[in-house]
């Protein structure tokens, strides 16, 4: 897509909903650019570069006055919708917006409805969360606002969220996300918490990774490698003596 080429050429175009692991969906509208072609006789078009296919003879302008104006308006709207988001504030400041000119959304939760979380859950093969309701009441939620039955507690949605809306909590070997509790695997040697049991089971089943790989933490596994290799070195030294 066009955005990848723009990034490759080192041009800075903002985007919030874009991530290489997921399909582009053009929901944040920030990667808007102006395109034209010689044969278009001066006609031009504004498109989201993350969704526009690259073609021969395309002339792309990323920072024209009109494009900047579009981006400023979008960021102004985002400032009204997500007054508490540092990412949005920082981005808006770069475009000279320090205060929104619209009315701030009451009880804003900083979600920009970019669907990055639902798309990454889909890539994982779970689709545990989705957008529910319509219009201004639309939110990302598990089915029926209940505990999501398909969630495996991998935190992909929380990590990919551009405005850090999805909260989770790891405490005493239990992970809580979307109001669902997960048992975290505890290293059998040092007691450190690793990933959630359900996520590990999913990897073991789907990708045929041996289950014993998930029993200890990375520190203990490295120490085990050192012990095993060390014993070989010791034996080699004894033999040579």
């Amino acid at each position, binding site marked *: 897509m066009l955005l990848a080429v723009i990034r490759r050429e080192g041009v800075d175009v903002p985007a919030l909903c874009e991530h290489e692991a997921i399909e582009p969906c053009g929901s944040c509208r920030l990667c808007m650019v102006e395109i034209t072609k010689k044969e278009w006789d001066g006609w031009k078009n504004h498109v989201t570069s993350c969704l526009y296919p690259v073609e021969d003879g395309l002339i792309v302008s990323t920072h024209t006055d009109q494009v900047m104006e579009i981006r400023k308006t979008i960021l102004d709207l985002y400032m009204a919708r997500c007054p508490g988001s540092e990412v949005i504030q920082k981005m808006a400041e770069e475009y000279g917006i320090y205060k929104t000119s619209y009315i701030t959304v009451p009880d804003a939760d900083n979600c920009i409805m970019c669907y990055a979380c639902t798309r990454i859950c889909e890539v994982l093969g779970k689709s545990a969360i989705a957008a529910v309701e319509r219009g201004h009441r639309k939110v990302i939620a598990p089915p029926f606002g209940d505990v999501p039955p398909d969630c495996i507690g991998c935190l992909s949605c929380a990590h990919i969220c551009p405005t850090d809306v999805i909260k989770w909590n790891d405490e005493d070997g239990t992970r809580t996300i979307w109001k669902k509790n997960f048992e975290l695997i505890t290293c059998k040697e040092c007691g450190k918490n690793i990933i959630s049991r359900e996520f590990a089971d999913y990897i073991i089943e789907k990708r045929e990774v041996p289950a014993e790989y998930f029993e200890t933490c990375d520190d203990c596994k490295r120490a085990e490698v*050192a012990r095993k290799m060390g014993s070989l070195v010791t034996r080699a030294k004894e033999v040579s003596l």
Partner: protein
Amino acid sequence: MMFRFEVNPSLCTGCRTCELACAFTHTKNQKPGRSRIYPIGYAKDEYVPVTCLQCDEAACIKSCMFDALRRNEETGAIELNLERCVKCEACVAACPFGCALIDNVHEEIVKCDLCGGSPACAQFCPTKALEYKKIA
């Protein structure tokens, strides 16, 4: 041309120069990254430099649901594409040798990529416990 990354623990003195070389090679925003190689002591004054073995049938590649880990056919190293990584830590949990790591400074997952074909740790190792040798 084929190369082999050789680790000879009997030569390792545990000086940790490789750790420094690795951390500074992977510097971002003026902050050294987390080292991908660890000399671990198993007896008094005996060390084994533990690093990624670039397994043929790698558990990290298998466990990554987002295809962020791929083998670089040129160097043979398994490289992590940070643009595709969502930090789910599946590879960290799955690696049987504990060599996919969490870098808390840059908040990303790190693993040895053989520095794209010229490993800094081997260049800096004073006792040649680490060597990057041409084999064919």
